[in-house]
């Protein structure tokens, strides 16, 4: 029983952490972030299974996390009002070629990061962008101005 509780507590903590940290930290996968991800995974595993090396323990922990993931997803799908809380909301970063500084500050995103995102979309200048939106998955989507 305790392994289910530990898995649920860790799931809840990680869920809260991911929602509160800011989505850019989660979506940008620099080499350091990948290492950090592995380290966090290892630390979490120890906390969940502790000295339980059994297959039953592993199945219980994974099942608990899978069920909670589906529960969050189902709740988000069924209860529209909870969706902004569970998944977050898009944030407008550029309107008509102009960076919205307070929104960048709020998400700790630099203008250089937005420019990098634009380059990846073959956009050479932010002046060509009508809208740039930070999506809930942490990626920036760009809508170019109509020619």
């Amino acid at each position, binding site marked *: 029983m*305790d392994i289910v509780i*530990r898995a649920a507590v860790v799931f809840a903590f990680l869920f*809260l952490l991911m929602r*509160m940290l*800011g989505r850019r930290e989660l979506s940008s996968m620099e080499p350091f972030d990948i290492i950090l991800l592995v380290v966090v995974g290892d630390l979490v595993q120890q906390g969940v299974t*502790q*000295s339980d090396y059994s297959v039953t323990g592993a199945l219980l922990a994974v099942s608990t996390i899978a069920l909670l993931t589906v529960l969050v997803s189902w709740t988000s799908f069924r209860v529209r009002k909870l969706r902004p809380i569970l998944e977050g*909301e*898009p*944030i*407008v970063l550029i*309107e008509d070629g102009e960076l*919205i500084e307070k*929104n960048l500050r*709020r998400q700790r995103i630099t203008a250089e990061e937005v420019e990098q995102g634009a380059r990846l979309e073959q956009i050479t200048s932010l002046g060509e962008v*009508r*809208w740039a*939106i930070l999506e809930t998955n942490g990626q920036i989507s760009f*809508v170019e101005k*109509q020619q």
Partner: protein
Amino acid sequence: MSDIPQGIDLPRHRDFEGKAAGQWLRHGFLLLLTLFVLAALLNAFGARPQTEEAGAAAATLKVTAPERVRGGLLYQARLEIHADEAIGAPTLVLDKGWIEETTINTVQPEPAQTTSDPKHLKLRYPPLPPGRTLSVFISLQANPNDVGTHNADVALYDAGEEIASIDRTQVNFP
């Protein structure tokens, strides 16, 4: 026709109208995380050892051990008896909080006799002449399932007579 992308509500997604609470919530959570880590640095979750001492005419008893431990943690307790008078059968009596759901790896030096009752573990050592100090090192590991507060008192007896005792509480974190 508006060119605002579908699903985007400018007052909400650009100007954050009605979302001030969310920002405060985020700051509050980060503050909580900071406090959590600071509390750990200040030993709120163990496992820095504390020393407690109890004295009597015949002997002094000193315990150095963490009062807060976390599941799975290896830690050490040092129990010292300093005899001011001869003690014929120095016996350390440990509350069951020391041993319940705890793995005792070693006890050094090994006692001459180990007994127990439902609430205590008793370690009896050879006679201690005046002026001598006996240091007992116990290596322990907290079992991960054990969570909560336990009495972890220690008492020094000489042939059934209590000489000194220390009231201790041990908190086990998950």
